[in-house]
């Protein structure tokens, strides 16, 4: 007897009842003919709501424009903030979307909206698109994880939602899963390496065997464990046990040299590391490139700290903070694009830059800017993107979208199209209702796609 649960599973597994939507058809056909064209995605996530007028959509002639100057870029007619000079040279690869328009100005809700495509409401736990897309792109036989999140912000995070913890990101560098280290070093504590002059090291929590355990001991332990598990599992076929054993096997594989060497930045030439920037974000971009090279389909790098403790959430002293953040951003982001291009990886890697909303064009009494979702900017670069252009525009005062408004669904649909993912694919949600990867009402920004 096939249960209701099985029915829904089969429906999600690919027995799609909807016809392939028009716009996807041609793109998919192209991708399918060349399977190697399935792309990877690097998401540069800017929590707090970065100010668009001080980065990608400058208004130098207007009172709202603030003190920053605008500079020319390698994209004719497109000018950006003077504090992003490295990126200015790479704008020929970029499509700047200046007409993002959403309605949500609350951090938590806006983060959910931008990362899942939906506002948090009702019982459905929507997955973030990192989980959603990596699920479609990941090679199940690869020992590398499908979704890695580097130095994520510690609050307002979305997760794998109804896809389950299998699709949660592997977190590198920070986050609550970092083990608590003892306050004072004692004889048994692992030897701390000299402080990295590239910022706090980016490590996968618990990837290394504890220093107090010898390798022989670790092997002996695993041997005892194997015996216990073999005895218990034999005669008890059950999904939780099978999943447990499989996770341990994959974890052990990852611990072995091949899996963990991907995370070792010491392999990279020193001068390249310096170009990316002596900070967690810059090194995170470098790590993202390494991971993409090794087949990880989705990597998220967050830039949430700056001189200003609020990061991009610059209600107070906006310009000092944004200048500092821009310097960090520029080094990491521009070097990443150049590095990907040098290695021939740019056409197969989509780089997305976004926050959860923008900031008010009118400068407030604290020389800051507040939340502003009505007209803001995001960037798409690299794989599948027609670069060198700005899409949409805002009014001279930045207060409204003047042309080509873009909603979150369309934005995500564009990413989906670039990555070669079937938007009609369904997953079973936690309420049993199948949910399509992309809301069927959305359509990608055609002019952004090459």
């Amino acid at each position, binding site marked *: 007897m096939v249960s209701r*649960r099985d029915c829904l599973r089969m429906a999600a597994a690919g027995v799609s009842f909807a016809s392939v939507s028009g716009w996807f058809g041609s793109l998919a056909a192209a991708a399918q003919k060349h399977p190697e064209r399935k792309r990877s995605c690097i998401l540069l996530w800017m929590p707090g709501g970065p100010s668009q007028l001080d980065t990608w959509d400058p208004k130098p002639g207007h009172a709202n424009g603030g003190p920053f100057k605008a500079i020319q870029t390698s994209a004719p007619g497109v000018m950006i903030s003077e504090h992003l000079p490295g990126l200015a040279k790479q704008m020929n690869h970029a499509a700047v979307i200046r007409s993002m328009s959403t309605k949500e100005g609350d951090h938590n809700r806006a983060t959910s909206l931008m990362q899942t495509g939906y506002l948090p409401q009702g019982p459905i736990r929507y997955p973030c698109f990192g989980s959603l897309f990596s699920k479609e792109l990941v090679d199940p036989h690869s020992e590398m994880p499908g979704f890695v999140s580097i130095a994520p912000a510690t609050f307002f995070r979305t997760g794998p939602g109804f896809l389950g913890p299998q699709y949660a990101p592997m977190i590198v560098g920070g986050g609550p899963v970092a083990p608590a280290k003892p306050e004072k070093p004692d004889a048994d504590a692992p030897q701390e390496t000299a402080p990295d002059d590239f910022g706090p090291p980016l490590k996968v929590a618990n990837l290394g065997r504890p220093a107090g355990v010898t390798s022989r001991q670790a092997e002996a332990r695993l041997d*005892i464990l194997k015996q216990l598990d073999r005895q218990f599992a034999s005669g008890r076929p059950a999904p939780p046990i099978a999943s447990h054993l499989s996770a341990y096997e994959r974890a052990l594989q990852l611990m072995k040299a091949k899996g963990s060497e991907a995370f070792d930045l010491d392999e990279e030439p020193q001068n390249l590391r310096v170009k990316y920037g002596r900070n967690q974000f810059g090194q995170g971009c470098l790590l993202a490139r390494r991971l993409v090279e090794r087949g990880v389909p989705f990597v998220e790098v967050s830039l949430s700290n700056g001189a200003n403790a609020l990061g991009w959430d610059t209600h107070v002293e906006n310009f000092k903070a944004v200048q500092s953040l821009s310097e960090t951003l520029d080094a990491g982001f521009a070097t990443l694009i150049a590095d990907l291009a040098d290695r021939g990886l740019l056409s197969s890697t989509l780089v997305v830059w976004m926050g959860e909303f923008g900031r008010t064009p009118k400068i407030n009494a604290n020389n800051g800017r507040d939340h502003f979702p009505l007209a803001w900017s995001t960037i798409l670069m690299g794989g599948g993107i027609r670069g060198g252009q700005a899409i949409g525009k805002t009014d001279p005062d930045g207060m409204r979208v003047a042309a080509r408004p873009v909603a979150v669904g369309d934005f995500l649909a564009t990413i989906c199209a670039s990555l070669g993912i079937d938007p009609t694919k369904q997953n079973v949600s936690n309420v049993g209702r199948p949910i399509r990867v992309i809301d069927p009402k959305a359509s990608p920004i055609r002019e952004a796609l090459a």
Partner: protein
Amino acid sequence: MQTSAAPPTESTATGGAASQPQAGAPAEDPVTLVAAAIDRQIAARWTEENVEPSPAADDAEFLRRTFLNISGRIPTASEAQQFLDEPGTVKRRRLVDRLLANSAYPTHWADLLRSVIVPEANTDPILQQQAEGFERWLRRRIAQNAGYDRIAAELLTDNPRSGDARFYFLAKANKPENLAASVSRVFLGVRIECAQCHNHPFAKWRREQFWQLAAFFAGAETEMGARPSDLQLAELTIPDTGKRVSARFLDGSTPISKSPKHAPPKELLAQWLTAPSNPYFARAAANRVWAQLMGTGLVDPVDDFDESNPPSHPELLDLLADEMVRQKYDIRFLIRAICASRTYELSSVQTDARQANRRLFARASVKGLAPAELAACLSQAIGEPDDQSGMEANPFIPDQNGSLRSLVMELFKNENVDPVDSETTILQALALMNSHVIEESTAPGRGTTLAAVLDAPFLDTAGRIEMLYLSTLSRRPTAQELQRHLAYVEHGGAHAASKPKLGNVFQQMITTDKSKTRSDRDIALGDIFWALLNSSEFLTNH
């Protein structure tokens, strides 16, 4: 092992023993009667399907499983020892009674119920903080053994005693459509929310019916403490249409109030919901308790009662529902009755491929542990206090705590909460193998439980190994396991092979260094402890 108090009646080829009441129990007591009825109904299907059930679970299996199901934790080593060594045949019943009388039961079941009623608080850190008062109220009512119908009614109405139940409305953003979807799914077992936007694709629910139910909560958004008492106002417009509907129950009947001036719609809804004549409420309630104890509901998924999704044992479900009503929705009664059944007492070992069909209940299920359970089990096993205060983490401050509970809650949180399909991730495996907290607990001289085991003066090596097993797996090692572990420990554990092969004299000189040998032995015991903590047997409920 257990002798029957009454002579066996006709036994069928399969499941004959299962239709006997548990030995030693008074034959007339209602718990026994219901348990026997459960066994009869379940065994009848085994006969139909020609399935041989698994053998009965031994004491250790029953002990650990029941502790986890009722209290959300494993027994301590001494609780395990006591139970295993207790003579007599009524100890299982007494265990269930003891566990239901203990405060861990309302804490655990309030947690479970909260997770069902307000799943949003599982992942939203702000809601998590606000849930504290709500959970306290649930715990109190369950501890007082308030009927499930009273709890549901108090939740829905603005009963001042359930002041903390306001949180329910808050978590649903005070929106009538969210409240309707929730009430339907949680208390009626009906997933009506598909019908919010269009007629339900599989079931018979129409869009109009959804909004008629939602109309009971009309004005919820603007309430803010005010109590609408006018049924006339319980009306809503279906979005994107001009259609106005008034509050109607799901079976189509119209709410009537005795005094039209004072007719709070939510109270009428609560009354209809919990009325004995309501076919959904009692069944949904009984089904949820069954699913919690047996791993799978008689209707599966538990909140999807539908014509196209019939119960596996319709008569049994009716029986349990009727019993619930008769016992005034006493949750403890149902727990007692189910745990007293032979069906509950089956082993999770599979001896026949046909036992794989979960809907036959021919074998006990294996379930993953919920994060709170895992935190409790780990804390207890390693001897760390389970710091529950660390749970309410301020979402704006990065978690520097590193406490075991916060590590576990973050790492193991799962929005797909069906435990029989529970999944382990690589990050979880890495944390259990390599994290600082595990390293500390398995290193001699640092871990609390391990230290107690190593330092107990009256134990020999075999005794210490037994203690480690009792603290984690709640059982004693088998003869084979003990032999293997003893050999490992007495040969110096992992470092045995590294000892150079010298002549006998030198060998003796080395081994007379008692402190060195002892510490190798301690490390070896720590290795065994580590393996126990990482084993699938420890990390599942079976």
